């Protein structure tokens, strides 16, 4: 069988002391829509190892990452190849829930290091100060001219979920903006 090809397969990861940028391809991603007050929501939380976060802009981490996207919408993210859809479907049973495999809809760019916030601030209007957008926070927002899901993790690390068709653009943009922190000399 032919190799899978990720949207940023041609992108070379970059790394300096202050900043690292790399693609994390092929994560399992399930878009989940369900009434947060329903029995199904509770059951799905149990199955995933953590209640679905109901505080806007937060992420719960258990067997998978549960990113709040909206009042009845989450992005459930797990390792490559996991059958999260099956787990969630089984937990939801016949209840009304929207469970959609979107694993290839977006790819993930990891932005890490002490200058990660400085880099993202070139294109993201959110206040990324650690007190405001620290580990465990997530948001759907714009980064440059692409819609993204942005999730903050421990240690000045971010995951940027970007739609596959925009990934090339976003990588080019990130590299242009990152030059300053990677020691690229001005043109």
């Amino acid at each position, binding site marked *: 069988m*032919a190799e899978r090809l990720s949207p940023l397969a041609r992108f070379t990861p970059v790394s300096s002391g202050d900043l690292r940028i790399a693609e994390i391809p092929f994560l399992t991603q399930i878009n989940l829509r369900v009434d947060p007050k329903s029995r199904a929501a509770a059951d799905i939380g149990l199955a995933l190892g953590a209640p679905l976060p109901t505080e806007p802009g937060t992420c719960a981490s258990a067997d998978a990452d549960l990113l709040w996207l909206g009042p009845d919408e989450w992005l459930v993210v797990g390792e490559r190849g996991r059958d999260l859809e099956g787990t969630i479907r089984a937990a939801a049973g016949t209840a009304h829930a*929207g469970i959609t495999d*979107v694993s290839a809809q977006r790819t993930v760019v990891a932005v890490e290091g002490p200058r990660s916030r400085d880099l993202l601030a070139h294109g993201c209007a959110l206040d990324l100060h650690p007190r405001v957008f620290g580990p465990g926070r997530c948001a759907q927002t714009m980064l440059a001219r692409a819609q993204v899901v942005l999730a903050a993790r421990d240690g000045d690390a971010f995951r940027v979920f970007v739609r596959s*068709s925009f990934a090339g653009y976003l990588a080019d943009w990130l590299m242009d903006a990152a030059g300053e922190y990677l020691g690229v000399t001005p043109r």
Partner: protein
Amino acid sequence: MTSRRMTGWQGEPVRFRFDGRDYEGVRGDTLASALLANGVRTVAASPALGRPRGIYAAWTEEPNALVRYGVEPMAQATTLDLAEGLDATSLRGRGRLSEEPDTGRYDAVYAHCDVLVVGAGPAGIAAATAAAETGARVIIADDRPIAGGSLPDTAETVGGVPGAEWAAATLAALDDRPDVRVLSRTSVFGYYDDNHLVAVERRGVDAYSRERVWRIRARRVVLATGAHERPIAFAGNDRPGVMLAASARAYVNRHGVLPGERAVVFTTNDSAYAAARDLAAAGVEIAAIVDTRETAGPAPDGAEVLAGHVVTAVGGEEGVTSVTVSASDREDRDDREIEADLLLVSGGWNPLVHLFSQAGGELRHDDGIGSFVPGSVRQAVEVAGAARGVFTLAGCLEDGAAAGARAAEAAGFRVESVFETPGTPAEEPAAPAGHLWLVPSADYGTHFVDLQRDVTVADVMKATGAGLRSVEHVKRYTTAGTAHDQGKLSGVLTSAVVGHALGLPLADLGTTTFRAPYVPVGFATLAGRDRGALHDPVRTTSLHEWHVVYGAPFENVGQWKRPWYYPRAGEDMEAAVLRECHAVRTAVGAMDASTLGKIDVQGPDAAEFLDRIYTNMMSTLKVGAIRYGVMCRPDGMVFDDGTVIRLADDRFLVTTTTGNAAAVLDWMEEWLQTEWPQLRVYCTSVTEHWATVALAGPGSRDVLAGLAPGLAVDAASFPFMTWRDTEVAGLAARVCRISFSGELAYEINVNAWDGLALWEAVMGTGVVTPYGTETMHVLRAEKGYPIVGQDTDGTVTPADLGMDWVVSKKKPDFIGKRSFARADTSRPDRKHLVGLLPADAGRLLPEGAHLVETSTLPEPPVPTLGHVTSSYRSAVLDSTFALALVSGGRDRMGEVLYVPLGDEQVPVTVTSHILYDPEGARRDG
């Protein structure tokens, strides 16, 4: 020329060129200070009158000293850092854009803070310090390379050290705090709603980006923007050598430059006395202080003070040689000519209320200072120091500290200790300022109000004499305030002169509106990183690299790049497309259809929901089957079309046109959330989760059978408009039997990261011809399938397209239904989609050409019957053909109409819009 640099002034030499002559200045100079140091008095000719002009001010308010250099078309010599090799040319009112490309990089940053302080003078630094001590996140931005506001100009001391040193040290300490950001060389130029402020940071040619736009969202703002000294209108007030008093003081203290040898000071207030003292101490002879007030201030050593006097004339065509003064009481006129090469002017001070006014703040006239000060405002902003009329150093420090603490407190921080403002030398209480805007005269022809636009008091009086009563009208009549300096010095003066002319108080007239930007900002600076390839995102499919390698030109469809056609060696577009069409009609072709929008619609009410959204019935669709659907806006006009496939009783997959994917999802969410929240439906975009390969042509079944051995592909097992989940080329796939060409065809959907593998497997069969969007368009047009947005334009109903069959008669309602009954939408002579065959089968009609009834063209206006929406050469029809929207078109079958093209009337015959295989015989192969 002699050097005017003060003896003992240290500085690394910097060589530069101005108007073709070589000079030397020192590091830290502006171009203006370096020119003054070299004794250059005349730096420009005025734009309209050609009068010689000199340096008048020392910072962004400068009206005269405009230059161009490098790729910069227009800059102020007073703000331009002297750099080694600078080669500047003076301007006469107009800049010149350089043909040389600008190679600079520019960017932007978003920033957030609790307190933004604008201006790092005494008030601003005090405000920032007071705010920072509460723990608030603070940004302090200052437009100068050296902080301290007026402190480097005045050489006053703060806390016992020179003010500039205090400013630098205090800012450095602030910058060391983790939650304080100090931005120097950063001009805050716009103040927008909800405390959104924008600033430009000039980082220099050695920085990664030369200039950076800061987009700052501040919970509170402290404006400590200072004040501008104002000019006075008197005869000859534009001569080189006439200079604002505080600016002259700045050249002495900041740059060690003497702007003249013998000076007359013309003032309405005490501040010019301090300037005179500093100039005298530096070696400038103060010939006289001409004070408009009857009670004059204390004279510096040796200077004569003429109380109750004004300047009535300035001698010297090329620069001041003498100043004529007179008692201001005209009855007792006593003209006296004083020899001087420098005339310092101080008409008092105008607080810089630009940003405050931009914020929506009301201005109030302050009689004491004779100008406008901040009044009430809705936004969360404080004004401190000279910007609100506090003109003493101690006052500014205290005012700033209080404003900073107030701002932090309002942002939710506790003020635990009162910030102790540093000590300043005792200041004599200032005597009340006088207010004089213009020196009365019989001839106002050289009383300049706006130096850069050559506007005089006479011009203003002509405007008021023409009947104008508003300062906005006078500005437009005279052009005062419209030049590069945006009236920084002339604005309030113009209002005052209008008031003088009309006999109205300045307070009643107000000012013209203050508009962003406060300082000019480069186009490229604002465009930032959004240039070239990053101007707008390029969206690509997972097959994109293959299309690139195989030489396809791309068509922009919204942000997507879609392969247009795949030329072989020696082929032009026409040849390639005819070949691709032929391949699909006779063999098999494949197209990347991944850009189509895809929406997963789930929930027990999904069928009911789609019944309301689409014009046709979707609830009757069987699981496993596919139906074409059209959606309209409530006005009945076609909005989008696509297929709906039923995955389960409670689950559908909807496809949209490429350009409308986001709009359709938003549309569905809008109706679900705002009109039908009771419907239990969830919509999720899966556009990019799938890669879609369209396989079309009579040979497509064999190709599919070879790639999907597990799939029964015969027409009975896999009928038209059904779908199957299977494996294709070893990849999990969903295959839909749908056709946009009329041929036997399939769409194979796989996970996007498997897309290239699928495509390569398809191409690996060796029998499949790749085709692009152009071929797709031709094939669908031969079948009469409309393209939304090409054959429709927002004024076309499904019935106009001959698609009555897609409009349900059974459903009680769906979006758009009611509009079909309106008078205009039920007219019989609406434009219908029809086919056109040119009499000359080789004649390709231009898309967009119109149709008329007659073979000769009458005089305009000529009634049009409609226009050509699509037009192609058809391999299979052996003719060109077109689709057109034609008035009453369905009743014109067989009629000959004419397409006016230049001098020609090209005859065409109206036909059905379905030109190829109207029986649908080919869809099963």
